[in-house]
């Protein structure tokens, strides 16, 4: 169908629920499939709209290649993407849910390190004394890189992490981390502390659209 609009929504957790509510509240009632684990859904009385549940990261990829016209995903994931993917996506609206901060965190007991300036000094110190680099574990290498470099921290090495990044400093995989946190509880419970000026990005869920489809959506999009 020529006028078909495909929307990607997060497939799990609170983000999924809030995204569904977002559409319901705007008079677009999301109809789940009868089969509980089916990845497709539709909107009541809108036969030209198809909804697909996907991993939040996947939503950004698929907006980039044009499989999706519209999607809801995190600003953090969008900003972390490679430039040529980012260029294909437009942020239509920042939403009032899914808020979380990407931050730099160090072990609690590094009491001498309170700010990025401290971190910069310690990084040089490690380099000078041991001829190795401060290791920063992260799921967000691109955002972490540009943040640290803009703050004058240059003597570090990124360690890419897929999950449980909070454990890295205590199992010898890295010295510090950057990670996304909404309440700070996980960091706190794992004896990590956010640096005073260690906020890399304030993220929220965003309504995103594929740039290629803007003109098509203008005439069809009810939101």
């Amino acid at each position, binding site marked *: 169908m020529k006028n078909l609009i495909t929307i990607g929504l997060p497939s799990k957790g609170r983000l999924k629920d809030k995204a569904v509510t977002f559409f319901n509240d705007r008079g677009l009632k999301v109809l789940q499939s009868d089969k509980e684990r089916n990845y497709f859904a539709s909107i009541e009385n809108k036969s030209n709209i198809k909804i697909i549940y996907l991993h939040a990261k996947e939503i950004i990829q698929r907006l980039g290649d044009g499989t999706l016209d519209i999607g809801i995903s995190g600003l953090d994931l969008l900003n972390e993407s490679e430039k040529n993917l980012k260029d294909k996506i437009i942020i239509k609206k920042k939403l009032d849910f899914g808020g979380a901060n990407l931050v730099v965190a160090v*072990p609690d*007991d590094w009491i*001498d390190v*309170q*700010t*990025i300036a401290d971190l910069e*000094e310690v990084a040089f*110190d490690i380099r000078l004394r041991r001829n190795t680099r401060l290791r920063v574990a992260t799921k967000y290498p691109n955002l972490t890189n540009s943040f640290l470099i803009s703050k*004058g921290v240059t003597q570090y090495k990124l360690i890419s992490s897929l999950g449980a990044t909070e454990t890295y400093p205590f199992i010898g995989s890295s010295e510090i981390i950057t990670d996304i946190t909404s309440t700070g509880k996980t960091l706190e419970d794992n004896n990590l502390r956010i640096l*005073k000026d260690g906020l890399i990005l304030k993220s929220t869920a965003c309504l995103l659209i594929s740039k290629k489809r803007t003109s098509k959506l203008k005439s069809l999009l009810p939101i």
Partner: protein
Amino acid sequence: MKSKKLSDQIVKTFKKNGFSLSEPDVLLDSEYIIQRSGENFRRSMLTFENEDGKIMCLRPDLTVAACIKFIEKKSKSKIYYSGQAYRRSNKQGFDLVHDQLGIEILGSKNKTQDDYKVIKTILDSAEKINNKKIQIKVSDINLFKSLINSLDMPERWKLRLIRHFWRPKYFEELLKRLEKNTDIDSITFDTDKKRFYEMKKMNSEKLIAGRSISEILKRFDKKIKDPRSFDKGKQIVKIIRSFLKINCKLSKLDENLLNFAKKSNLKKNIFKDFDSIQNLKRLKKEVNFITNFGRDVEYYTGFVFEIFIEKKEIARGGRYDGLLKSLGAKKDIPAVGAAINLNNI
């Protein structure tokens, strides 16, 4: 092929001056380079994963590749190289492939003499290209260090300014902060004092995320004692800015430095350790000395120079005493070198 003929001529000059060929590897272990040169380097490397799962890169720079060869004891100490280096850039129209032709003295024992040898050899080569319109610009990062160390400000600030001298943009930010006397680190310690005393009772060898308790406590202690604020920021920034404006003929350098010291109320003997620069008078050529120069390459530690023909930079070089150790050499190996930029000829 004009450039082939030219590079043959240059190589001939290198050989005549006692440099022998080194052929650095084209493929290098990229983790090794990142570990040593920093994460920022990753963006400019062309990498691939080999069959063993190792991430390899095409050599991004021939100086670095030649140093690695030397550390592996596979080259002599006085070498020249001729080949291509491969770097990626986001800028449009930026070449991936760079022809590099250069010399290095690795394990340089006589600093003044070797610095002279390198610049003289490069000049001899440049003269083969164009004898008339050669311009020489020089500087020495040690002069900046001497200046900073003679100024009355907290140690923390001195180290910061020296560390970031090679990053002009961030350096400027630092100066602005210093000018306003806003320390980038003016945090109080009250909350952590309690933990400080608890930690004092712990085993000082214990590691927390790779740092020993003694290391952490020592730095904490130093931080508390180091003055947080001082009121001379504005004055000091003025001195630094005026220093970075020094741009004169080499023959007038002594006079200029003396005037600068006098004007800034500094002792006249603060500038030491720039024999290599003084020694360039032997070249009997017009040399310009510029303090705000050679600030884009992190690894230079002393004397730096650039050679221009008709406003085009055709060669640059300098002393880099820390690079070999940072690339994995067991001890300090002082070195000096330079490369000719064939693309600008």
